[in-house]
């Protein structure tokens, strides 16, 4: 099972995402932004980081990378894509997901072990969870406040497209405590927390994030 991880200039959590795929039992495949070759991967992760230094807007420049044109076309045909943090921002800039990530309410970068609730386990990235599962996964971002129009929020809520929600505290002022969402088809998921940093208790606050990566492998086998 080949799962790709894209390295943009300024990507930071690409190596951790590759490791998470390996630990989950998949074959991690590094992809480079400047090529449109998806190297026959069956799913792709856009990792966290500060691609292009967050210049202009987070994700706004990466969205135009050659690899993204391939990913956008594939995603529109049901190809599974997970955007983590900066990856989520890139998915919003690419219009694969609605809304936008804006500066945290407190205007500080926030790195903390964040309690979350799984709201949607019907995506290929969350199928291993049970709805209502409580997770602790790190968040670490300066621009993680999810914002969308009232109509979009209503649509996300009514269609069950909120994947993860912050619980106990809202760290950044996200609307409706939203920590992650999916597209209408359910194949594209964006999350602000970093599941790839919670795959082993030695280096993370929990192992709660590993299920994102085992889920995608199981989902692909089931196809």
């Amino acid at each position, binding site marked *: 099972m080949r799962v790709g991880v894209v390295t943009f200039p300024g990507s930071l959590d690409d190596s951790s995402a590759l490791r998470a795929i390996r630990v989950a039992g998949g074959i991690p495949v590094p992809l480079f932004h*400047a090529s449109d070759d998806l190297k026959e991967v069956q799913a792709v992760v856009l990792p966290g980081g500060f691609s292009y*230094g967050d210049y202009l807007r987070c994700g706004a420049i990466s969205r135009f990378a050659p690899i993204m044109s391939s990913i956008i076309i594939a995603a529109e045909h049901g190809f599974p894509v997970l955007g983590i943090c900066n990856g989520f921002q890139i998915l919003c800039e690419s219009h694969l997901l609605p809304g936008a990530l804006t500066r945290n309410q407190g205007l500080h*970068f926030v790195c903390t072990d964040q309690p979350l609730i799984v709201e949607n386990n019907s995506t290929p990235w969350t199928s291993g969870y049970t709805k209502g599962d409580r997770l602790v996964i790190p968040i670490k971002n300066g621009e993680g406040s999810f914002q969308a129009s009232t109509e979009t929020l209503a649509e996300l809520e009514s269609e069950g497209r909120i994947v993860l929600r912050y619980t106990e505290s809202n760290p950044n002022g996200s609307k409706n405590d939203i920590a992650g969402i999916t597209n209408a088809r359910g194949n594209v998921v964006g999350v602000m927390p970093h599941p790839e940093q919670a795959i082993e208790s030695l*280096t993370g606050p929990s192992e709660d994030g590993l299920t994102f990566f085992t889920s995608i492998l199981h989902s692909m086998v089931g196809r």
Partner: protein
Amino acid sequence: MALDTVTTAAAQPDLVQPWQELGLKEDEYARIKEILGRRPTSSELAMYSVMWSEHCSYKSSKVHLKQFGEKAPHSDALLVGIGENAGVVDIGQGYAVTFKIESHNHPSFIEPYQGAATGVGGIVRDILTMGARPIAIMDPLRFGPADAPDTRRVLPGIVAGVGGYGNCLGLPNIGGEVVFDASYAGNPLVNALCVGVMRHEDIKLATAHGTGNLVVLFGAKTGGDGIGGVSVLASETFASGKAAKRPAVQVGDPFAEKVLIECSLEIFAEDLVVGIQDLGGAGLSCATSELASAGSGGMSIQLEKVPLRDPSLSPEEILMSESQERMCAIIEPAKLARFMKICRKWEVTATVIGEVTEGKNLEITFNGELIVDVPPRTVAHDGPVYNRPIAKPAYFATLTPTALPKIESADEIKSELLALISSPNIADKSWVTDQYDRYVQGNSVLSQPEDSGMIRIDESTNLGVAISTDANARWSYLDPYNGAKLALLESCRNIATTGAKPLAVTNCLNFGSPEDPGVMWQFAETVRGLADICLEMGLPVTGGNVSFYNQTGTVAILPTPVIGTLGVIQDVTSRTRMGFPAADLMVMQIGNTSDNFSGSEWAHLHGQMGDSAPTPDVPAEMRLIDLLLEGQPLFESAHDLSDGGLAAALTEATLRNGIGATIALPAQFIPGGVAAGLFAETPGRVLITVHPANAEALSALASKYEIPLHQLGSTGGSDLMINEAAIPLEQLRKAHTETLPRLFG
């Protein structure tokens, strides 16, 4: 604009030059003329003035720092010692680790965000330059009083700068210090440590050899930032038509540095460089003269080839610019094409600006005219050396012993403890550390607020390193010789407490003006203490940094030697954490408490300094380290007792996992009573928990190493109970965590 060439310099020997404005002394200027046999050109003058500055030449500290060489212990671990960009030690399994700490104090006072950010950027490039992948950073910070208006100006900016740059580079920030003291008002200290890892065979050095090899500048383009005092030259030499004076503080672009790191590592992996040097302080002047000086000496540079952000820069300014995110490499011509291809992949600008020559001099031309022709060693290494006068400061005559309240009743214990653990120096630092990414790279085994930061080096073998930075400036003020030793001992204890073996030491020595004999005495005593203890403990000093002139008027900062210790741990999964992990464990204190409160946080809280630092018992501390390492399998938790004493350690250990404890401090058994038991900062002590089943084994181990062991109580419940005083953990947490958010938003 007429260029001041070597020919002009010879033809106009009597031209008046602004050497004084550039910070040179009269005899230093005379020495330059003697070296060259003529007056320097304006470009040469610029180079000498900046390379012979205190910051670059260590002219006041050199005579003392040489003790680190003279007293160096034999160490099989040391692969690269003092003198390179950073020292390198062998940690086994073919891995080499490089680490170093540097100051960026003055720029951070002027422009907190950029000063701190470029401090991180500079130390990361030093590590990268050794051929290593940077894997973590730490930042010991010191500020004026927490409620002072200027602290509110500089602290948020400095913290945001450290975070903004480090986070964007993808380097976990795994620890450091935040300390407040009135002496740092107007002189905040921003020290930054970086650690990197490589295979032994990948070590790179800053050297230029091989006639015909190319000098390549790569990274950001050169701009007018960070030129500082050298702009005097431009205005003196070229009267009109220049842009307004530019900022003396450099501006960082972490994205450019991140790309430069990846590009450089790919270049190193293919073994494409002969030598490499980063451009930091003194920019191209430093990089070219140091590279040439470490090689055969000959180098020619065509300065007009340097890519510029600002085309109006004069040659002197190009030589002096401290624009960030630049590197200089020496490359064999046959490898240039491959080098350039990797640079293009990462969209990094790279330009051949010169070559290694057969001659002995560094020759720099600008559009064909020779403007610098100097023996590079005279610039890089043969700067002036001062043996400045030293004198024990007068303040020693005014020191008085502490006179602190006696603590007995439950109310006294509770109120004094809550006051201490909510004071800015002891209060929880999450407001700061939550602005730093501690998880990135996925190898952070321990980070703040644990005793040391710990990074996994190898996923298959679980080999790892631990790092801790420590200083107790008040002890250094009371006794700089022992203060330095105590800082090193605390740092080593922090390493051993987590289960790692101390291996090597770096330091950042922050002091007032070297022209003050009292400050110079503090410095000399500090270096002597540090060199002595490193020899005694067999720990090599791998490098360091000196920051002088941290003073306002005649008032210097407390002497602040920050010691960074690197340790190695064979299996990171065995690390010991500081929080109480469960109920029904025995709480024990290793080591005895004495009743000296001098320099302690509790005395500081009561506005007192005291009169004497503790005298370190180095052999006992070394036995303690052995005990900690051998006893590690027995410990359920371990936490060094230092700032804030047992009171602070109990607070941190209970709050970490929300597990309370019941502690008995029988006043009659502790010299100094309950107050000392809770608040004294006696070195050589560690708070641990063990399963009752392991108590006997631990006791035997303590006897073997002749280290006293005291049972204090047991874990459990939702209170921290000390004698008759019951403090609910929620009340403790509120007191401990609300201080910094209240002060800084």
